[in-house]
C-alpha cells in the first residue's frame, strides 16, 4: 500500500493490483479505483493545466462535475479520447493517461507565461485585441489562436468501436441510484410497475453507501448498513431493471429520455474490442422520478485553484469509499455542516485535520461530534490566500467582520497539504429544467429548487433541495406514494436520526485585504474565469446572465459550469444589487455530461449512414466503368471514362457523340407519380402553370410547377395515358416533396377532387436514347412499330412490347435531339438497357452520365430546377412566359406572379453568357458585375451553369442577372481572384433555336 492508501473498504479490492501509466510513468492502483483515486493514492494531485493561464490544476471532485482533472487516454492509439474526466474513468489494466493543454510537459509548461501576463488578458481580451490591424487576422492572429485553442487531441483514425441505440419503454424511470432513488425504485417495483433505475456509477448507493458516521442512523443502523440491505433486496425484484454505468443525457418532453450506458469503457484494453462500447437508450417512460442528487459548491477566494484543493465531500469519498487520503495534513474550509463529516472521518483514521468555518457557530450534532473529538475549529474565519505552485503548501486566514463583507485582524498562516472546501450544495435541477420545469429560489440556503408542476415527473432527494437525511427518506417516500397513487409502502414506519444544520451562511465571493483586481478567485476553473472577470463584464455593461456567461466564458467549458454557474449568478446578483431569484439561471441544455459522437450516431455510420438508392441498371454502369454522383439518395452515373479520360475529356466525347450519333442515359431516377381519377385533368390544371384539359390521350406535355409564392418549384413531362390517367415525372431530387405537396392540396384544399396519387418512381426503369441515330435504334428494337413523325410525333407516347414485356415509349427530349424514352417495369430495366446498347452498337451508341446531360440541355437553354433556380425565380424571370397560361382562372402561384415584387423589372433574370475568350470556362456560382471601378462593387448576378460546348466549340454559361432580359449584347465582368473575365450577355438558347434537330 502507498502512503496515501490508508484504509481498507469493501468497494476497492486491494488484493487485485491494476497497473496504469500517467504521462508515461507506471503506477499501481486496485480494482474498484477510478483513475482519480488511483492517482491520489500515489500522491498525485497535479494532472493538468488550465485552459487560459495554464495554471497547474489538480483533482477537485469525484464525479461528473470535475472541471480540472481531464486527460487524454490511450494516446497514439485509435481508441484515444480527449477530455476524459479522471474522476469518472474506472481504472483498468493497461490504461494510459496523459495530461492535456501543456507543452513541453505538465511540470514545465511554456504556456504558464500566460499566468504572469494575466493582468493583460482579462475577459473579452480576444474580442478587444484581435480587431486590428485588420491585415493581421488571416496570417498572424488566426493561426495563433487556432494553435492555442482546444483541449485534448482528436483521434485521427476512424473509431474502431461499435455504438448501439436501443428503445425502451417502462412505467417508471428512476434517475439516480442514491438513497432516494433506491427508495423510489423499490416502491414502484413492489407495486407491479415496470421500473428502470439508472445510475451513472458502477454501483448503487450514492453518498449514503459510504456514510458510516454515527450521527446518521436509519432503523437503528448506520445509514450505509441500512442502505446495503435495501440494495440487496432491491436486486431481487422481478420487474425492476437496474442499469449502472448509465447516465442520463437528456430529458425531453413527453417523458422521452436519452441515457448513455457505458459497456466496455471500464474493461482492459485486450477485452475492449469484443463488442459494443456504448449504448444510447431511448426511453419512453410513463412516469419519471428524478433522484439526481446534489453537487457540492466550492468557495471563491484568492488562489482557490491550486492542486490539493478539493471539495470536502469528495475528500470523504476518496477516504471512505476508495480508502485514499487526499492529504496527511488537512484543512477543511466550509460554510456548512456537511464538511464536518469529512473532518470526523479523517480524524477517526488518525489523520491531522483542522476546520475553518465562515459561520460564527453551529450547534448541530455533527459539529459537536467534531468538537468532542478535539478537532481545532477556526470560527468566523476565511481563507485569504493559498501558497504552493504545483501543490498547496499553506494558507493564510483572517477573521470576518461582523456582516461578513470584510476581513479584520491579522493574517494567520497554517501549513497543510490538502485543503477541503465546501460552499454548500447545489441541487441537480438539470433534468427538471430540460423537461420544461421551472425553478424557485430558496433564500435561506441560496439554492434553486424545482417548482413542481408536471404530472409526469417528480424530483426527490437532494435534487429537490432536501439535504437532511430524515427529509430525504420521508419526503421521498411520501412524494413517490402520492405520485404513483400508492397508499402504503415499506418505508412508512421507518425511523431516521440525523444531524440537522441550523446555522446557515453563504458568501458568494469571500472578502480579502487585497483589491479584487489583484486576486485570482476562480469561479470557472476549466475556462479560467475569475470573480474579477464577471465584475468587469458588469462594468462594461453586460446585464443579462446569458451575455455575461458568453463574454466571460463562465460555464462554457466541458463541465458546463456544474461548479461555477451558481457562484457566477451570486456574484452578479450581489454586484448588481438584485435578488438572485429574479436574475434567473442560464439555460440547462442537454446533454448533462458530454456524449461521444459515436453514441449519438449509433450504427448509422459507413454504409448505414444513409439509404443508397440504385437503379436496376446500376450493375451495368459499374461494369462499364461509370463514375457516380449522388443525387439525393440516388447513385447516378456521372460519366463513363474510357482509357483514363478525365471528367472533361469524357464529357466532351459523350456530348459530341450524343449529337452526332446516339447517346443513352439511365433516367430511371426521375420521380414518377401515377395520377388517376375523374378530376385528374382539373387537378393538373391547378398544379401546373399551363393548361392540361385539351391534352390528347397519348400525348406528353412539359409542365412547370410553382409554389404559392410564384417561385418555380419543380418541372417535368407528364403523359396522358388515358382519359383519367396521367403519368407525371418530377426532378430526381424533388420527387418526394412534389408528392407531399400534391397530397397536401388534395387532402386539405381540394378534397372534392376525385384524384388518386401513387408514387411509382421505383416501379419503372427508363432508358433515354437521343441523337440523330436514335430512330434507327428504336426501329431495330421494335421492328413492328412505325416511328415516322406522322405516326409517332414528338411529345407523344405509345405502348410497345419488347421480348414479350410491355413497355411505354415516350418521344420527348431534354437534349434538343430526336429522342425516345423507354419505360419498363424495373426488374426488366437492365435487360432493356443491354438490348438498347446491343441494337445501338452499329450506330455508335454511347452511354452518357449526368454531366453530359447537363451540358446538352444547357446548349439548348433548358433549365434545371435547383441549379438555375433557387426558390427566388419566377417563370417570368426564367423568360418562360410561354408556359404560363393567361386563360386559366387559377393555378398554384398564379396570383403571386403579379405581386408588386414579382413584376419588378430589375429582378434577376435568366440570360446566356459568352466569354470573350471562347476557351475560358466560367466557374458556376461566380459573381457578375457591370462596373469594376465603382466601389462598393455591386454584384448584379451569378453564373448558374457553365460548360465548354464541344458541339459549338466554345464556352457557354447560363446566369441570372438583374434586369438581364434587356441586356442582350451588353458587356459584363466576372471578377475572379486573380483576374476579371469579360463576358457578353447572349440568348440563353445556344444551339438549334429553330428546333430542327428534334425532328431530324
Amino acid at each position: 500500500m502507498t502512503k496515501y492508501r490508508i484504509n481498507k473498504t469493501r468497494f476497492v479490492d486491494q488484493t487485485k493490483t491494476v497497473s496504469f501509466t500517467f504521462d508515461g510513468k507506471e503506477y499501481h492502483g486496485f480494482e474498484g479505483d477510478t483513475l482519480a483515486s488511483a492517482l491520489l493514492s500515489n500522491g498525485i494531485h497535479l494532472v493538468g493545466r488550465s485552459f487560459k493561464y495554464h495554471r497547474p490544476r489538480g483533482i477537485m471532485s469525484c464525479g461528473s462535475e470535475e472541471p480540472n482533472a481531464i486527460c487524454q487516454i490511450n494516446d497514439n492509439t485509435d481508441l484515444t479520447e480527449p477530455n476524459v474526466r479522471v474522476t469518472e474513468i474506472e481504472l483498468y489494466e493497461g490504461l494510459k493517461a496523459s495530461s492535456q493543454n501543456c507543452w513541453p510537459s505538465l511540470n514545465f509548461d511554456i504556456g504558464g507565461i500566460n499566468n504572469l501576463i494575466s493582468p493583460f488578458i482579462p475577459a473579452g481580451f480576444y474580442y478587444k485585441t484581435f480587431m486590428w490591424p485588420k491585415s493581421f487576422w488571416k496570417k498572424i492572429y488566426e493561426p495563433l489562436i487556432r494553435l492555442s485553442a482546444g483541449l485534448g487531441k482528436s483521434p485521427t483514425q476512424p473509431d474502431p468501436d461499435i455504438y448501439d441505440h436501443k428503445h425502451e419503454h417502462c412505467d417508471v424511470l428512476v434517475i439516480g441510484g442514491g438513497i432516494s432513488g433506491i427508495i423510489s425504485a423499490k416502491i414502484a417495483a413492489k407495486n407491479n410497475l415496470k421500473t428502470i433505475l439508472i445510475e451513472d456509477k458502477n454501483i448503487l448507493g450514492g453518498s449514503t453507501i459510504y456514510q458510516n458516521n454515527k450521527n446518521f442512523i436509519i432503523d437503528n443502523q448506520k445509514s450505509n448498513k441500512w442502505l446495503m440491505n435495501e440494495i440487496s433486496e432491491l436486486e431481487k425484484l422481478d420487474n425492476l431493471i437496474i442499469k449502472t454505468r448509465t447516465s442520463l443525457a437528456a430529458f425531453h418532453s413527453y417523458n422521452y429520455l436519452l441515457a448513455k450506458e457505458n459497456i466496455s469503457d471500464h474493461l482492459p484494453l485486450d477485452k475492449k474490442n469484443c463488442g459494443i462500447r456504448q449504448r444510447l437508450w431511448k426511453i419512453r417512460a410513463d412516469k419519471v422520478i428524478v433522484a439526481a442528487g446534489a453537487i457540492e459548491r466550492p468557495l471563491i477566494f484568492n488562489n482557490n485553484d491550486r492542486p490539493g484543493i478539493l471539495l470536502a465531500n469528495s475528500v470523504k469519498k476518496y477516504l471512505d469509499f476508495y480508502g485514499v487520503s487526499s492529504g496527511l495534513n488537512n484543512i477543511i474550509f466550509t460554510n456548512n455542516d456537511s464538511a464536518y463529516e469529512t473532518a470526523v472521518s479523517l480524524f477517526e483514521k488518525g489523520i491531522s485535520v483542522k476546520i475553518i468555518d465562515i459561520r460564527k457557530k453551529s450547534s448541530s450534532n455533527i459539529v459537536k461530534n467534531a468538537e468532542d473529538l478535539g478537532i481545532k475549529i477556526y470560527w468566523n474565519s476565511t481563507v485569504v490566500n493559498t501558497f504552493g505552485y504545483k501543490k498547496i503548501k499553506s494558507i493564510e486566514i483572517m477573521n470576518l467582520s461582523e456582516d461578513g463583507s470584510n476581513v479584520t485582524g491579522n493574517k494567520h498562516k497554517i501549513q497543510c497539504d490538502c485543503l477541503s472546501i465546501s460552499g454548500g450544495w447545489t441541487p441537480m435541477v438539470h433534468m427538471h429544467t430540460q423537461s420544461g420545469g421551472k425553478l424557485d429560489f430558496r433564500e435561506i440556503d441560496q439554492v434553486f429548487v424545482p417548482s413542481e408542476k408536471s404530472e409526469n415527473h417528480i424530483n426527490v432527494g437532494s435534487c429537490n433541495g432536501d439535504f437532511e437525511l430524515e427529509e430525504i427518506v420521508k419526503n421521498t417516500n411520501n412524494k413517490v406514494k402520492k405520485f404513483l397513487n400508492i397508499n402504503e409502502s415499506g418505508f412508512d414506519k421507518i425511523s431516521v436520526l440525523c444531524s440537522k444544520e441550523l446555522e446557515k451562511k453563504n458568501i458568494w465571493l469571500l472578502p480579502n485585504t487585497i483589491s479584487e483586481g489583484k486576486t485570482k478567485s476562480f469561479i470557472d476553473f476549466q475556462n479560467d474565469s475569475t470573480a474579477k472577470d464577471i465584475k468587469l463584464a458588469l462594468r462594461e455593461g453586460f446585464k443579462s446572465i446569458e451575455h455575461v456567461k458568453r463574454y466571460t466564458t463562465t460555464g462554457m467549458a466541458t463541465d458546463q459550469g456544474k461548479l461555477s454557474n451558481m457562484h457566477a449568478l451570486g456574484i452578479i446578483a450581489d454586484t448588481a444589487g438584485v435578488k438572485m431569484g429574479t436574475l434567473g439561471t442560464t439555460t440547462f441544455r442537454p446533454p448533462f455530461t458530454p456524449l461521444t459522437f459515436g453514441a449519438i450516431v449509433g450504427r448509422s455510420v459507413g454504409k448505414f449512414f444513409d439509404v443508397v438508392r440504385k437503379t436496376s441498371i446500376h450493375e451495368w454502369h459499374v461494369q462499364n466503368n461509370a463514375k457516380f454522383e449522388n443525387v439525393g439518395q440516388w447513385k447516378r452515373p456521372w460519366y463513363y471514362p474510357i482509357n483514363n479520360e478525365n471528367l472533361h475529356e469524357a464529357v466532351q466525347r459523350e456530348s459530341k457523340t450524343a449529337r452526332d450519333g446516339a447517346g443513352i442515359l439511365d433516367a430511371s431516377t426521375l420521380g414518377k407519380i401515377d395520377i388517376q381519377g375523374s378530376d385528374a385533368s382539373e387537378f393538373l390544371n391547378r398544379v401546373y402553370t399551363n393548361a392540361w384539359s385539351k391534352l390528347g390521350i397519348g400525348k406528353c406535355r412539359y409542365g412547370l410547377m410553382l409554389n404559392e409564392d410564384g417561385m418555380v418549384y419543380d418541372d417535368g413531362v407528364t403523359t396522358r395515358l388515358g382519359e383519367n390517367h396521367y403519368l407525371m415525372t418530377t426532378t430526381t431530387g424533388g420527387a418526394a416533396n412534389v408528392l407531399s405537396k400534391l397530397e397536401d392540396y388534395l387532402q386539405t384544399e381540394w378534397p372534392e377532387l376525385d384524384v388518386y396519387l401513387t408514387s411509382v418512381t421505383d416501379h419503372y426503369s427508363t432508358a433515354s436514347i437521343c441523337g440523330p441515330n436514335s430512330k434507327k435504334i428504336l426501329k431495330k428494337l421494335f421492328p413492328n412499330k412505325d416511328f415516322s413523325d406522322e405516326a409517332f410525333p414528338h411529345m407523344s407516347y405509345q405502348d410497345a412490347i419488347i421480348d414479350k414485356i410491355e413497355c411505354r415509349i415516350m418521344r420527348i427530349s431534354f437534349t434538343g435531339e430526336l429522342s425516345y424514352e423507354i419505360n419498363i417495369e424495373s426488374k426488366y430495366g437492365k435487360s432493356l438497357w443491354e438490348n438498347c446498347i446491343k441494337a445501338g452498337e452499329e450506330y455508335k451508341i454511347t452511354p452518357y452520365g449526368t454531366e453530359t446531360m447537363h451540358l446538352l440541355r444547357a446548349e439548348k437553354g433548358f433549365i434545371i430546377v435547383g441549379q438555375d433556380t433557387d426558390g427566388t425565380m419566377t417563370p417570368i424571370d426564367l423568360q418562360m412566359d410561354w408556359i404560363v397560361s393567361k386563360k386559366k382562372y387559377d393555378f398554384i402561384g398564379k396570383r403571386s406572379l403579379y405581386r408588386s415584387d414579382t413584376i419588378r423589372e430589375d429582378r434577376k433574370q435568366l440570360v446566356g453568357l459568352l466569354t470573350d475568350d471562347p476557351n475560358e470556362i466560367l466557374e458556376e456560382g461566380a459573381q457578375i458585375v457591370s462596373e469594376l471601378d465603382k466601389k462598393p462593387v455591386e454584384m448584379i448576378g451569378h453564373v448558374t451553369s457553365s460548360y465548354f460546348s464541344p458541339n459549338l466549340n466554345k464556352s457557354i454559361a447560363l446566369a441570372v442577372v438583374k434586369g438581364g432580359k434587356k441586356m442582350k449584347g451588353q458587356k459584363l465582368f466576372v471578377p475572379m481572384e486573380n483576374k476579371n473575365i469579360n463576358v457578353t450577355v447572349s440568348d440563353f438558347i445556344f444551339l438549334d433555336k429553330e428546333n430542327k434537330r428534334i425532328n431530324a
Partner: protein
Amino acid sequence: MFIINCPYCGERDQIEFSCGGEAHIVRPKQPTELSDDEWAEYLFMRKNIKGVQFERWNHAHGCRKWFNMVRDTSNDKIHAVYKMGEKPPVI
C-alpha cells in the same frame, strides 16, 4: 419528442410526423380578385403564437394523412387532434 395521437392510426412517436404550420388558413377561392395586401395576408402572415396554437400535421411516415392539432407551443401540451374538415374544438 411528442407522442401524437393520429386520428387515423392512434398514438405514434413524433418522428413519424411533420408539421405543416398554422391551421385553418383557407386558400382564397378567387385569388385574382385580391389586392396585393390581401394576398400577402394569406401567403405570408402567420400568428406564431406562444401558447395554444392550431396546427396542421401530416403523418408522413405513416398513413400520410393530414390532420389538425391543437398544441400549446409554450409547453408542447397537445390539447386535441381532429380530422381535416372537422370543426376545431373550443380550448
